């Protein structure tokens, strides 16, 4: 091995980062396809079925098409902010996944002396990092909405940011209840705390200890990712496309990518916090990540299913629900959890 190369552990880590990044991009592409396919079957039609087997290559065809599309910027727009908003959105969407563990550890079949964990990085305040980075995503949306200087974009951006910050509170409080059970902010430790079963057949997942917390988390997660039935920023019928009305070509694709990566991240966080992460029966340790993928996929499917089944809320109902119901319930859930933990010990 030449001397100028960094040590194998560092190389393996960089490789892992690239693999995770690529998997996220591919999963977003897969989600686009799955969304269209599931939607099509729900509406009793076939959906994309021309490009590749059953249309799986459709997202790639779409990307190539978008690549050659004209990029327009309204002349009244703020050039700098208009240009960086999609970059912020995409970067924030990807970054949150960095702290999520998706498997045990590997030595790459003995190539490395020290096993590296299947996770970009295991920081001891992972939950806080996720909380912080998901809030960063709001900047991309607000800046996109404001800098376009279009009425639809402005309204979409404002609505979106108000909605996201409203639901972020309940989202954070639902996280806090799980943190309290685990006594740790590290996602790897939280997952490991869910190992084992009750009476031999019920897995010790936090979803069974925190059913209300899980519901709050999922509801807030849907609102955070701006998905139906809470898809107000986009609300096609009233706001055209919301904050990205004025975007075209690849800048538009970046918002699209960010939305799907955000969904994957929220599902992955839900999996780690409530569904035991990569833990599951039957599979050997080195294949544990398959369980992680299965669980994330099921939550994503649920997301898509919900989008094509439920009608959109009304905006005032959304805000009322977030502030008057979800927030108090989340606080009470947290306090009840604390009291129960102290009582049972």
């Amino acid at each position, binding site marked *: 091995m030449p001397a100028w190369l960094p040590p194998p552990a560092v190389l393996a880590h960089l490789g892992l980062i690239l693999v995770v990044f690529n998997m996220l991009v591919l999963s977003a592409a897969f989600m686009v396809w799955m969304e269209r396919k599931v939607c099509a079957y729900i509406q009793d039609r076939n959906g994309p079925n021309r490009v590749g087997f059953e249309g799986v290559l459709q997202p790639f065809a779409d990307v190539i098409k978008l690549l050659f599309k004209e990029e327009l910027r309204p002349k009244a727009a703020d050039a700098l902010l208009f240009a960086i908003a999609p970059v912020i959105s995409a*970067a924030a969407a990807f*970054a949150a996944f960095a702290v999520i563990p998706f498997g045990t550890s590997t030595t790459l079949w003995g190539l490395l002396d020290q096993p590296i964990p299947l996770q970009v*990085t295991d920081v001891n305040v992972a939950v806080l990092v996720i909380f912080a980075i998901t809030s960063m995503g709001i900047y991309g949306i607000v800046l996109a909405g404001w800098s376009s200087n279009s009425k639809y*974009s402005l309204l979409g951006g404002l609505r979106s940011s108000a909605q996201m910050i409203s639901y972020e*509170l309940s989202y954070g409080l639902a996280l806090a209840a799980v943190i309290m059970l685990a006594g740790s902010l590290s996602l790897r430790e939280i997952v490991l705390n869910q190992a084992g079963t009750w009476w031999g057949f019920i897995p010790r997942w936090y979803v069974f200890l925190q059913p209300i917390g899980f519901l709050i988390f999922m509801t807030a997660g849907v609102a955070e990712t701006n998905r139906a039935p809470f898809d107000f920023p986009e609300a096609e019928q009233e706001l055209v496309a919301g904050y990205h009305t004025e975007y075209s070509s*690849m800048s538009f694709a970046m918002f699209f990518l960010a939305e799907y990566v955000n969904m994957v991240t929220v599902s992955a966080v839900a999996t780690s916090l409530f569904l035991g992460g990569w833990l599951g029966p039957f599979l050997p340790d080195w294949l544990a990540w398959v369980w992680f993928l299965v669980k994330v996929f099921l939550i994503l499917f649920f997301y898509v299913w919900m989008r094509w089944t439920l009608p959109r809320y009304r905006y005032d109902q959304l*805000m009322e629900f977030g502030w008057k119901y979800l927030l108090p319930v989340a606080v009470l859930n947290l306090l009840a959890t604390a009291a129960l933990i102290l009582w049972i010990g």
Partner: protein
Amino acid sequence: MLTSYVPIFIFIVIAAAFAAFTIVFARLVSAQKPNAIKLEPYECGIEAAGDARDRYSIRYYLIAMLFVIFDVETVFMFPWAVSLGKLAVFGLIEMLLFLFILVVGYFYAWRKGALEWQL
């Protein structure tokens, strides 16, 4: 300790570089034929009336301010939640007192109509 954050930083840089590169690349390979009409902000195909730099509802400011207050509270709850085992009953009572003050403010905001969206 801080080295465990380096991968996150690398990840952000890769993601931002990827986004910036594809956007610039698309700009280079695509045909650009702008004209005055295309560069108008979209308004259902008719000519745009006025500017979007207008006043918007005060509600958004209110929500943002309420968010700051409650988000600080949430952030305060994270360390409390982690160390509840050590703080025990004392910690719970402290948190109840803290929340009581917050709930007073919450109901004040509610009664004042800060949480109502319809005017």
